[in-house]
């Protein structure tokens, strides 16, 4: 049994199903992220854990104790908001100590704990400042310290970095993870940013239209997406429509060119169309060693993306397939229009659960 247990959570707003049959069991000290596009139900689920929304059915347990119907102020759950939500009339120290004052803890204990937390967020000298005198990043660190002050059983973070600029986001997310590891607090983090979710989490819950698409470690989510939605939402991906030639041998045909999957194809018979997911970084220019899948077509585009270069190669009449290669000053690239052969190992081609709608190829990006 997990420390945080969400069982069959359902939530509707009128006719709109915000969350459907949500199941999660998080271990003590685990960092779990809810990842998905806007309106997928991730924030609603978080708000149900916090007590700001009540589920229509299902239950929420923390450390074995049922909290589904408890009001938010009786749950001992800390929350960090996207908009910081610091109290404008209070100093940094008063903000951090607010929860302890509400719980009528001794003044000396509050002062000591506030001091410790301000040290933890590297802001001891800002104790007497007001929120409006701090930058966005500093305000969010204070909000984190304030949420931790009451020693919550579970820490909830609702897109805490969304309002910050790119550099501060990266620095602050490292800080959040380091503090979370230091305190060993069970944490649920909501984000629509896949990089954030993958870099921070022990496990990621990918959601779409109120449902869980996949739960897994960042590596599982990225390398073995369970559905075409996960595959397309997380990272950049080529989605190739392929005709099944021999399901038991994993043989497929993409625009008349045969490739092989590492595993037998299940759920589709010979002649049926399936989706094959292929990461751009797993494809190389050239024929490569024996045993690799090979596809051939003309180069249609070359883009420099800093550390990588992305080539697009047209396969037959369908859209182009992308491949990434590391940028190198000595890199020789084929000219646009030249036909090239690209290769990838059979284990890089992942046959997804849902058949593709029509023959062709596409590139999906979760960036």
């Amino acid at each position, binding site marked *: 049994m997990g420390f945080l247990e969400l069982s069959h959570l359902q939530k509707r707003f009128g006719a709109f199903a915000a969350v459907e049959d949500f199941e999660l069991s998080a271990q003590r000290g685990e960092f779990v992220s809810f990842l998905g596009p806007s309106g997928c139900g991730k924030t609603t689920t978080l708000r149900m854990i916090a*007590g700001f929304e009540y589920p229509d059915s299902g239950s929420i347990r923390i450390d074995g104790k049922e909290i589904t119907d408890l009001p938010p102020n009786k749950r001992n759950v800390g929350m960090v908001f996207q908009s910081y*939500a610091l109290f404008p009339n209070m100093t940094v120290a008063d903000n951090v100590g*607010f*929860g302890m004052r*509400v719980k009528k803890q001794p003044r000396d204990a509050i002062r000591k704990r506030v001091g410790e937390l301000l040290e933890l967020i590297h802001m001891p000298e800002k104790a007497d400042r007001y929120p*409006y005198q701090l930058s966005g990043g500093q305000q969010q660190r204070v909000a984190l310290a304030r949420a931790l002050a009451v020693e919550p059983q579970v820490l909830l973070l609702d897109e805490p970095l969304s309002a910050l600029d790119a550099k501060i986001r990266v620095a602050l997310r490292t800080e959040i993870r380091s503090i979370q590891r230091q305190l060993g607090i069970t944490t649920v983090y909501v984000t629509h940013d896949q990089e954030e979710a993958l870099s921070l989490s022990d496990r990621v819950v990918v959601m779409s239209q109120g449902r869980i698409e996949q739960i897994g470690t960042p590596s599982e989510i990225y390398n073995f997406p369970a559905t075409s939605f996960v595959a397309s939402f997380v990272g950049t991906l080529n989605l190739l429509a392929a005709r099944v030639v021999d399901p038991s041998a994993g043989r497929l045909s993409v625009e008349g060119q045969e490739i092989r999957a590492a595993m037998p194809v299940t759920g589709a018979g010979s002649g049926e169309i399936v989706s094959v997911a292929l990461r751009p970084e797993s494809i190389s220019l050239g024929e490569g060693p024996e045993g690799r899948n090979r596809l051939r077509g003309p180069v249609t585009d070359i883009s420099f993306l800093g550390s990588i270069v992305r080539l697009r190669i047209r396969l037959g009449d369908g859209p182009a397939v992308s491949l990434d290669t590391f940028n190198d000053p000595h890199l020789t690239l084929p000219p646009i229009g030249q036909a090239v052969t690209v290769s990838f190992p059979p284990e890089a081609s992942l046959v997804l659960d849902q058949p593709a709608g029509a023959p062709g190829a596409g590139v999906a990006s979760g960036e």
Partner: protein
Amino acid sequence: MRRRRGSIAWWLIFLLGVLYFFLPLVATLDFSLKAQPALAAYTNALKDPKFLTSLLYSLVIGLLTIAASLALIVPTAYWVQLRVPRARSLVEFVTLLPFVIPAVVLVFGLIRVYSRPPLPFTHTDIGSSALLVAGYIVLSLPYMYRAVDTGLRAIDIRSLTEAAQSMGAGWLTIILRVILPNLRAALLSGAFLTLAIVLGEFTIANFLARPAFGPYLNLLSQSKAYEPAAVSLISFGLTWLAMIFIAFLGREARTRIEIGGAH
């Protein structure tokens, strides 16, 4: 050249505004000083014990009105904004009713309902004063509600409330420690507008036969020539002092919220 012409027009409008507001005051001051000796109207007014008692009575009624209005309006406006934002237009309509229903209608309604059993409020002084406060709460509703509502809109009350709840705070703690302190400027402006209304109100106080400042001023104008002008200027001065007090107290809070909300 065009900029200079615009600047002249601006100054002209400003001057017209100043004349519109201050000429009547200057005329009143001039008239009040016509008594012999020059400050006799002021000394007579201040010497009259009824001046002080009626002013004090109205101040006490004003403070009670403010306290009752705040107790009624702050939780209502807060709840409407937080939980039933769809009801906002209905509540706004209700708060505007005092502009449509004349004070005389209101006071006759109050007298008719509360001058007989089971609620014979008008039979005692305290009961009549309570009715006066109730009437003033209604009269000040448009000003007080708007001031509070504007103050609430200037802060993110939903997030602040949820943040406080997640730290264990109940509703009373949230309103007293989180919401009210951030509404200081709005509450002060609503409070002093209410006080200004109460100090100058005549109809309700007169029909309820209360010894308030408005009826006193009216009575004075029927029997004296210069003193009403002097008393009007004194009450005007008191109101202005109140306004300066608001601006002074509200300045710091407003700056804090505006800068804090500018991220």
